[in-house]
């Protein structure tokens, strides 16, 4: 396409700026390309010499840390399913029903959750879980995360659903579908991209979170990776950088994979439903 000089220049400048920002975002992660393969601890960016998989070997040998990855997965998957399902139902109800007072609910819950996400609320949560006899179980972690993440998930998802025309469900109902049928046949597929955002967001949150599992879990066979990563600290209390880098790399892969998968499969958008 032929363009005038200023227009061409503008385009190039835009692209260059975008690329530059992208690179700037990538730089801090560069270290992870090298450090895990380096035999010697380096905080600096250094091409490993020689390359080694030894760190990974050590990490794989740490059965606690490996088990922890699986635990993380159980907790994150469980939490995500719960958050996804409960938030979808609730956000849908808040958007589509005429329950009184639904307008401000999400705002208020959001504020409440801002208090509860801090460390001060760990004690009541601990007390609740322990009086329910759920201490040291995956389900305790899953429930607690679900509760904590729900207000935000509902807030985001409700925005999303509000943006989708009601005539989808209306037409289904006129055609004879019950509200539940309309929800599953029509509404759910349409709001899927929004649910996907919630799923990724809550997965990432649970996957990386330390405090809650740490407060609610006790036995080593239940601890998630966010806790296990501290086992790569020395007796003196300082991190063993090489192992940590190797473990961090393994620990990061699932979230990246999840993101790539869902954004390829479902798209990743906040508003507007499926492209009609």
């Amino acid at each position, binding site marked *: 396409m032929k363009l005038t000089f200023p227009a061409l220049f503008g385009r190039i400048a835009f692209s260059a700026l975008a690329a530059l920002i992208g690179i700037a975002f990538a730089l801090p992660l560069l270290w992870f390309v090298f450090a895990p393969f380096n035999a010697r601890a380096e905080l600096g960016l250094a091409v490993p010499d020689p390359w080694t998989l030894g760190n990974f070997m050590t990490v794989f040998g740490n059965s606690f840390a490996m088990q922890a990855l699986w635990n993380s997965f159980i907790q994150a998957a469980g939490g995500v399913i719960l958050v996804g399902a409960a938030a979808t139902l609730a956000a849908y109800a808040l958007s589509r029903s005429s329950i009184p007072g639904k307008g401000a609910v999400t705002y208020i819950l959001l504020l409440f959750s801002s208090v509860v996400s801090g460390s001060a609320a760990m004690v009541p949560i601990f007390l609740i879980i322990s009086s329910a006899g759920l201490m040291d179980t995956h389900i305790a972690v899953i429930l607690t995360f679900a509760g904590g993440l729900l207000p935000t998930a509902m807030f985001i998802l409700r925005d999303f659903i509000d943006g989708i025309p009601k005539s989808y469900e209306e037409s289904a109902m006129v055609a004879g579908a019950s509200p539940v049928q309309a929800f599953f046949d029509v509404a759910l597929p349409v709001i899927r991209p929004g649910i996907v955002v919630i799923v990724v967001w809550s997965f990432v949150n649970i996957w990386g979170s330390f405090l809650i599992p740490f407060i609610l879990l006790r036995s080593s066979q239940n601890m998630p990776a966010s806790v296990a990563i*501290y086992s790569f600290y020395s007796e003196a209390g300082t991190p063993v950088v090489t192992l940590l880098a190797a473990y961090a790399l393994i620990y990061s892969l699932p979230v990246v994979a999840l993101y790539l998968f869902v954004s390829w499969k479902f798209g990743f958008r906040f508003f507007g439903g499926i492209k009609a």
Partner: protein
Amino acid sequence: VDLDITCRCVIGGVNSATAEWIEESVIPAFEAANPDINVTLNQFGGEDAQLTQQLALDFSTGAGPDISGFDGFLIPSFAEGGLLKSLDELIGEDYANWEGWDHISPGIRSILSYEGETYGVGLGTDVRMVFVRSDLLDEAGIDADGWQPSSWTDLLDAARKLKEAGVEFPLQLNAGVAMGEATTMQGYWMALLGTGEAVTDADGKYIVSSPGILDTLELYKTIYVDEALGDQRAQMLADGRNRSFANFRDGKTAMLVEGDWFYRSVTAPGAEFEVADRDEVMSWKKMPAQEPGAGWNGQDFVSISGGTGYVINPNTEHPQEAWKFLSFMMSQEQMTAFQDYQPGIRSRSDVPIPDSPFLTETSQALLPLTTARPNDANYNAVSQEIQRMTEAVVSGELSPEEAMAQYKAAVVSIVGEENTVSL
């Protein structure tokens, strides 16, 4: 009967030796002897403080492992909050009659005691000293083998010489908030004891203003601000401790005050901060008092010890079985077995230190000199104020006087005016 034991230990991770010992030696042997008791080890991978939080929550609700690893200096605050029961109350006779007490010195026993009651059994203790790089000292013209500093001045003079010889940060005395308790124990205490003072006086009141504190802070100022004999940045960064280790490894630091584990595990072969040809280039010196004889208790040299041990959950359903296991674990036989996993200074005098000349020497030389932190529920909070005070000086932000004034105000508000004293 099922028993749970938790320690901050992970096979293949932090304190791997402890975990291996319990898993491979203690539990099988115990279960063989007591077929009706089933013991499970929970490896805890978090940080010390995190284990503390867990235990506090658990013990307050009646949950938690039956036996747990425990840092001695936390005994007072747990005991005061009713989160621990003394062994006397919990076990009674069996505890009192345990053979092990005959082999554990009162000093070490006191680490896990508070107000005369014993709450747990110590596993071992540690001592602190000055580690030196003989090769660097030699290069700077100091005869490393023969040299033993007898005053702060000696220490500083050596540092100056080293500096001239091109050693970037000759002396490391921990300071700052980021290193946490490592600042208080390996840094502040080691200096303060040299002035003849301690954090509390004989009555247990906190000393909040004294010449000793000032001198200590002046020492910090000399090292880090006035003469740049130490790595000022490392004291302030979150990974400062690692940096100090790396400095030592890389020959940028020649004298470093640390505990015995520095030799045992930090610089050991295969570790991250492995010092090549360790036994050639590395040795240790006693920490001198400010002036000979001016140290704590009138000593020429000082050291301080902490210690960890194991406590029994106050709410355990099976206190007797738990005690059975704990005492079995602390038996001479098992503790000796532990030495195979990781040699160290053990609480029992009848457990020999295996062929580790380093540990044998240091324990012989330093255990007689050492002291321990005060058994006080507020110590933890005060310790943080100490770290803050050192950081203020080391960063050059406050003068020693100002820093001490700030410390005073803070400690008064923590423990109350009546529990403080100015000298």
